[in-house]
């Protein structure tokens, strides 16, 4: 069967849009379901047939979860041990601090590697092991060690491990940006008598600041959503948002989907905002700076 060229082109185009749209639905539907459930009144959380559109949409779940407001309706689903705002604060402090440290020391290391070769290529790849070896294999001795030095269940403890596990990303990603900076500027700075540290902080890092921001936001995604280490290294004093969410699983009522969804939406929104801001840099981040656009 002979098709004209324009017919064939139209067919290709249709197939492309069909496939892409199907996948877009697959990708978006669970996220839609989470958002929709967070607006559903309690009788629609797992009703049969499933309710696809909250009717009527309600803010009760958000009020109850985030404000802990007992006076708002459906108090029987309130869980007393929840401290979402405290967890929000913990998550914010832990994620931003560890990410900041990671990017700061990572970029300094990356500068050293790029310009002074303080780590050989083999060492650079060995650094990746910090990320590639699953953290579960060291977390038990780590928690004993932490309890011995008083870092268990503390923000500092989590900040240190997050710093360690994200360092490879920071070094590799910032190095890929530093490698793109021409050396002439640094040489000029040196001739003008700038100290080495001043060259780093006042010349090189400002030159790659958009790259540093991208690296920061990228690592923020990882530290914000980390689960395993937070689960084991924190108990009652410090909970991060992912752990807060998992408390609903153990709740006696079970299946408090609306509440769970309201909390989940709150955790996910910052992540999506950050991710969409740096969407052009995600490939570089996840591939340790090896794949660029």
């Amino acid at each position: 069967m002979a098709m004209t060229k324009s017919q064939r082109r139209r067919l290709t185009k249709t197939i492309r849009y069909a496939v892409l749209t199907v996948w877009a639905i697959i990708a978006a539907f669970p996220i839609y379901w989470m958002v929709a459930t967070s607006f559903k009144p309690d009788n629609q959380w797992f009703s049969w047939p499933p309710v696809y559109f909250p009717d009527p949409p309600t803010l009760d779940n958000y009020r109850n979860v985030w404000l802990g407001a007992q006076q708002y309706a459906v108090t029987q689903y309130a869980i007393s041990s929840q401290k979402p705002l405290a967890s929000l604060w913990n998550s914010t402090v832990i994620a931003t601090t560890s990410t900041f440290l990671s990017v700061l020391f990572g970029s300094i290391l990356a500068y050293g590697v790029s310009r002074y070769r303080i780590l050989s290529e083999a060492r650079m790849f060995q650094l990746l092991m910090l990320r590639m070896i699953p953290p579960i294999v060291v977390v038990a001795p780590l928690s004993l060690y932490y309890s011995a030095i008083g870092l268990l269940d503390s923000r500092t403890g989590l900040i240190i491990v997050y710093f360690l596990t994200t360092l490879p990303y920071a070094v590799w990603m910032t190095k890929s940006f530093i490698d793109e900076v021409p050396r002439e500027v640094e040489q000029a700075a040196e001739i003008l008598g700038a100290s080495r540290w001043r060259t780093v902080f006042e010349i090189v890092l400002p030159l790659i600041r958009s790259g540093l921001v991208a690296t920061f936001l990228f690592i923020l995604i990882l530290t914000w959503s980390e689960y395993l280490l937070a689960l084991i290294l924190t108990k009652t004093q410090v909970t991060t948002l992912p752990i807060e969410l998992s408390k609903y699983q153990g709740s006696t009522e079970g299946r408090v989907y609306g509440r769970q969804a309201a909390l989940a939406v709150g955790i996910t929104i910052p992540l999506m905002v950050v991710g969409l801001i740096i969407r052009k840099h995600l490939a570089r981040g996840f591939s340790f700076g090896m794949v660029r656009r």
Partner: protein
Amino acid sequence: MAVAALPTAEMTARKTPLAASRARAIRRFKLSLLLPLIALFLLVLTPVLLLQLYFSFHQWTVYLSTWWDAEYVGFDLFDSVLTDPRFGWAALRSLAFAASSTIGCFVFGFILAYLMYKPFRGQSLYYIIFILPMLTVPVVVAYTAEMMLYRNGPINDAISQLLNVDFQASWLTNPHLALTTAALLEIWNWTPFSFIIMLAGLTSIPKEPIEAAEILGASKWRIFWEVQVPLLRPVILLALVLRFLEAMAEFPKTWALFQGGPGSATETLPVYIFMTTWQYFEISKGAAMSYIVMMLMIAIVLIAIHLLRRERRALDAMYQWRDKGEAVEV
């Protein structure tokens, strides 16, 4: 590596007093750059690895006395782990989970990237929607899955209505299906990873060979297999290797959603280690198990690193070649 040393480094070769003091200064500067890393290794990593080694050879549980006078048992713990059929099954499950989800992510990601690498109307909108799953917290993925996959839930309902059959899979409670469900979730969650990597690869491979093949009259199929795929090999390997390693470590979804169940259907290595250590409180057995898994992972990672090093050289060469030619803005 495409890195030429600074002229300062070359000058150190001359043995004048000035150059010597300069060399000292550079050495001191290099050391101070490395200091935080060295400090972290000494203060955090070394004690942790030593503790783990200690527990692998000393039988201790929390019910016993203080940990430092636990009994030395030699290789008994390793023996008990290696002869534990549950451990073997967990290893197999981990490998099956990681391999299947890696391939799944890659196939879907590659298809989507291939359909999207040339500009078309709506491209950026699709791109944004496609990366959303990657930007959800893994625990959130687990709980959202729970909200959707119960027997009368929306997923079964949607499939039933679309296919006009009574579809009632027990995604979460059927032991034969649970690991598949976990792998499907992993695929949903991380296809965006393969997608963005493959898209970046497809948009940055040189155009000339493809154009040349088109002029010579090659079909799209042949261009794909004989020009694009070989050029993409570094990116493909990277996408596969990194995803496989992450999938081997996957814990939040399998744990939060299944806790290893139903039965032991989703008991992967991380889950089994977690249960041994934090539910049965067999710290020592957990440590020995961790040690074995760590060695296994180090072996896998060394192979991965070998592959990545080779492919990164190819990639760097490609980017250099590209950047020397006309700038391709995407």
